[in-house]
């Protein structure tokens, strides 16, 4: 089975900032979105067991290359990087159109997406993409395996999980329960240098630059400010019994118990 893993290159967690236009500044160092790496790990395991190849797909600035190389070193066979300066400031809809157009050119049985990204926290792209592509959408996967009918996943819910099945190709959004991502081996890092990393532009996808970018965005950020500081902790350093009485009084005063 051939699997495309959607991988977003996000600012290194903790270093995120907005630029002068209140857009996420992507000129800082980028890394693979943490949640996406769990899907990559599962994709690698599935293809190691059942055959096929893993292809990475990212839409993002030229600085995303480093994250793609690392993911190639983990074991992906190749990568497609859609990079076009005119996309800066695109909203979710434009990004989904670009991803859908790129996926239409790739041959895959499964397309994997992480549960959400550290810089946007939307968690909606996978579902919208599936609709655009006319494919089944399966989400919050804690297990993914081939099935006679196509693919079977465990979907987390509050009480346990549902077992879902659909034909393939399908879009699957997964969780960390799929298993921790591997570290690239030295051999993997060497091999990654010669793996195909294709760069596509919007023109390659038949999308005009007038369909993307800030000018077409349907939403805007109005302002950004530092959150109000919490007042600072009151310290309790008394022996346990006294400390507990103070905690109870504190909670009662705030009507929390």
């Amino acid at each position, binding site marked *: 089975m051939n699997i495309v893993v959607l991988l977003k290159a996000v600012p290194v967690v903790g270093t995120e900032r907005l630029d002068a236009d209140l857009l996420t500044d992507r000129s800082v160092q980028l890394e693979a979105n943490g949640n996406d790496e769990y899907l990559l790990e599962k994709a690698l395991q599935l293809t190691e067991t059942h055959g096929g190849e893993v292809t990475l797909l990212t839409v993002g600035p030229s600085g995303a290359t480093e994250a793609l190389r690392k993911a190639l070193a983990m074991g992906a066979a190749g990568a497609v990087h859609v990079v076009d300066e005119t996309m800066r400031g695109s909203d979710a809809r434009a990004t*989904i159109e670009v991803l859908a157009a790129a996926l239409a050119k790739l041959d895959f049985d499964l397309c994997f997406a992480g549960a959400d990204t550290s810089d946007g926290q939307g968690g*909606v792209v996978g*579902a919208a993409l599936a609709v655009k592509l006319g494919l089944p*959408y399966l989400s919050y996967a804690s297990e993914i395996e081939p099935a006679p009918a196509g693919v079977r996943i465990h979907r987390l819910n*509050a009480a346990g999980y549902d077992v879902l099945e*659909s034909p393939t190709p399908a879009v699957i959004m997964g969780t*960390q329960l799929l298993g921790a991502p591997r570290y690239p081996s030295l051999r993997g890092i060497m091999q990654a240098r010669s793996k195909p990393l294709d760069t596509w532009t919007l023109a390659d996808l038949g999308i005009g630059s007038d369909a993307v970018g800030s000018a077409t965005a349907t939403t805007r*950020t109005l302002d950004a400010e530092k959150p109000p500081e*919490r007042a600072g902790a009151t310290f309790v350093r008394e022996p346990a019994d006294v400390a507990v009485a103070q905690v109870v009084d504190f909670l009662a005063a705030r009507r*929390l118990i």
Partner: protein
Amino acid sequence: MAEIWTIGEIADGAPTRLTLELATLARGMAEASGGTARTLLVGQGAGSAAAEAASYGPAVLVVETDAALASRPIANVVAPRAAALIAQHSPDFVLVGASNDGKDVAGLLLGLTDLPILYNGAAAAWADGGPQVEMSTFGGKLVTHSAFNGSRGIIVLRSGAITAEPAASAGSVETAGVDGVSELPEVKVVDSVTEAGAAAPIEEARIIVGGGRGVGSADGFRLVEDLAAALGGAVGATRAVVDSGWIGYSQQIGQTGKIVKPALYVACGISGAIQHKVGVQTAGTIVAINRDPDAPIAEFADLMVVGDLFEIVPRLTEAIQARKAAG
């Protein structure tokens, strides 16, 4: 004069707390705009949740679905029906809760309707002729406000955006038929497995007691669960605790887990690393119990109890039980 809809969620025959919060929010935003609000409830037995939802003000539109659809994930049932009704009634703004099912509904609706979308909302208000959505951006480093450039859109909101409050007069309840539904590609629920010891969901909890590496073991984590039970709250955990298998992933709070906003968070043996902080820093009140007075959690806790959690937590559990027993 905006028409603002909430797409509701039903659990055990009742609207979820998040649904009632959004209905309260929609009511306020509709009043501010001089418009109207509606709550949409879709699914088999949706009617049973209608009266409670209506008591929060917005008129409730019920779409009952037949048993044949019960083998599909609920988002795959709700989204195409919501999309058909949106096409029919053209509401200006559609509120969806950021639960797992809610985010699926929002994503599917995004694909089906092509409406603009703002997600990861922590709060929303009607201002300057449209909704302004507040977000806790980059793990809470910034508070940003966003708006739509046009006059329509989908807003995905996390729990805790507002306190759910019943309205002075309840909304009407109407059962709607939906025409022109085009079903999504079929996904079948072939089995449902209940796992023993499944904990109360943290997204809906007003009080959460969290445990970190400091609890030391699965047995140590029981102290956290006991305190949560005494407080009537849910159990949360850091990634280290989940990775150790002491509690399930559904309870994980933080960057790679869930972002929650309870009225009270009690952090037991949690250092407060940035990855955990981002998941809980907007809690109303944070009480930390930690041996290390220099732990980063002191920087965002309201009350920092310095001491051995194995001594303090069981005594706190007893004290709260005693207080509740005394009424």
